[in-house]
């Protein structure tokens, strides 16, 4: 019995919604039976994922395609670092597009949990830049 033969048997069982296929060949016998759904499966399907609970954390995404800058100028300090507290309206970074520096600001207060893009890197539209936790 080849494994892919068995796989095809299982596919048949599923596609055709059968309860069982049994196959004897010489002294070989193969039975494929549809499992009765276990209660635990139902429990898993019906889950309310923990991580989806609203913790107040959010990401700041790039509103335009361009180059990501963490500093106002090459010699200056970064606008923010991981662990920093930010207030609404604080500048988080610049995105340079068409030679224009666009300031990206925090819409809500919080603590910078992770900086997700690298300084000088090209960022796509919608790319996550910062993960910010509730203050």
């Amino acid at each position, binding site marked *: 019995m080849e494994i892919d033969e068995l796989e095809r048997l299982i596919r048949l069982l599923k596609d055709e919604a059968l309860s069982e296929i049994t196959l004897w060949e010489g002294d070989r016998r193969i039975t494929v039976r549809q499992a009765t759904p276990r209660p635990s499966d139902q429990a898993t399907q019906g889950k309310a994922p923990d991580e989806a609970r609203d913790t107040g954390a959010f990401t700041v995404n790039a509103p*335009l395609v361009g180059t990501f800058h963490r500093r106002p100028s090459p010699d200056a300090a970064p606008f923010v670092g991981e662990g920093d507290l930010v207030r609404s309206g604080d500048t988080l970074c610049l995105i340079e597009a068409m030679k224009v520096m666009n300031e990206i600001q925090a819409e809500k207060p919080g603590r910078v949990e992770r900086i997700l893009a690298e300084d000088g890197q*090209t960022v796509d539209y919608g790319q996550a830049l910062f993960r910010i936790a509730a203050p």
Partner: protein
Amino acid sequence: MTFHRVLVANRGEIALRVIEACRELSLESVAVFSQADARMPYLRLASEAICIGPADPAKSYLSIPALISAALVTGAEAIHPGYGFLSENPHFVEVCEEHGLAFVGPSRRVMELVGNKWAAREAVAAAGVPILPGECVPDANDSPEQAAERVGYPLLVKAISGGGGRGIRLVKGPQELAGAIAAAATEADRAFGDRRVYLERALVNPRHVEVQILGDALGQIIHLGERECSIQRRHQKLVEEAPAPRLDPALRDRLRLAAVVAARAVGYQNAGTVEFLVDERGEFYFIEMNARIQVEHPVTEAISGLNLVAEQIRLASGAPLAPFEPKTDLRGHAIECRINAEDPTRGFLPSCGKVEIEELPSGNGIRLDTHLYDGMEVLPHYDSLLAKVIAWGRNREEARTRMYTALERFRIRGVATTRSLAQEVISHPAFREEWAGTGFLDDLLAG
């Protein structure tokens, strides 16, 4: 080449087409995509792919800052606009130039000139190319009614900044004139931000024949023969072919020559199309020029063996025209049918949904241009063009029979398409043997 990396400012089959052309030219390519298009398989074929905005085209494929920024951050040195979107937008050309990006297409000056339909008409007429009687309105010296009398009825009211069939109204007599002008002007204002219109004599069931031209930076211009594009509904073409069938040889020669003269009159560079109407008496008239690659360019590629998109890129890099002799180098006949996700039985309503591929046509003489993949979502945001089936044959009948079989083999589930309508068109006696003008498809659909 004066550049090494080309940004493809479009989506769908033409984006794939441009990426393929870059690969053939050993150029790197940058694909851009909206969030809705993130799973398009053609993105893998590009050297790099970058998300430029949300599904809404105004914020992605039509966003000049997003496109220019994408080009600059990825180090692209040239932008190919495809067709539609920003392909005929002089301002986009201007911004490209400002940022040192080569635009694959004509210069801003030429694009502005041919984008003004009235100015283009006057320019080519001055070079001796025949045009239909026309008048610009309003003219300070007389009323629209007087202008219309001089043009003669029936006539068309046409937007000066027109395109895609918008801002056009047919007027059969004086009583319809004022209303038609108002309607066309309003539509043109909404679509192009320009209410100006002109009047042009209307022909009854003319044929729409266009000539493909190429121009280089040295000012050399050649043509690659003409295409027949009369099978259209509301100015949307459904079936195209090259060369145009049943055209008197002398007329064909004059038409092709006139296209070169017209292109030269405006100083055309890169690939472009000169559109003519041909009436049943065998007269032809210039109507407009298209400053972009056309959807139907593959029929010309099929009979010429050229890669027009690669030629566009070569020409934009300053390369001279490669030698081409239409009399000997054009071979056979090609037909294209557009497969749109539209339901012809329900007024061509766009049909959205998830496409499942069952079988796709190919084989001897068949080319299929498509970005289709199994599971693709057809979205309401974009053009309904799903695929172009192109059939080549040593003669028109061979191409036609191949096309019929190919259409039969185009089998997808999930959306309604224009496939069966295309089969009906190419099987129709008028299409096969007679004069099928621009009224053909409406008559077929009405009857």
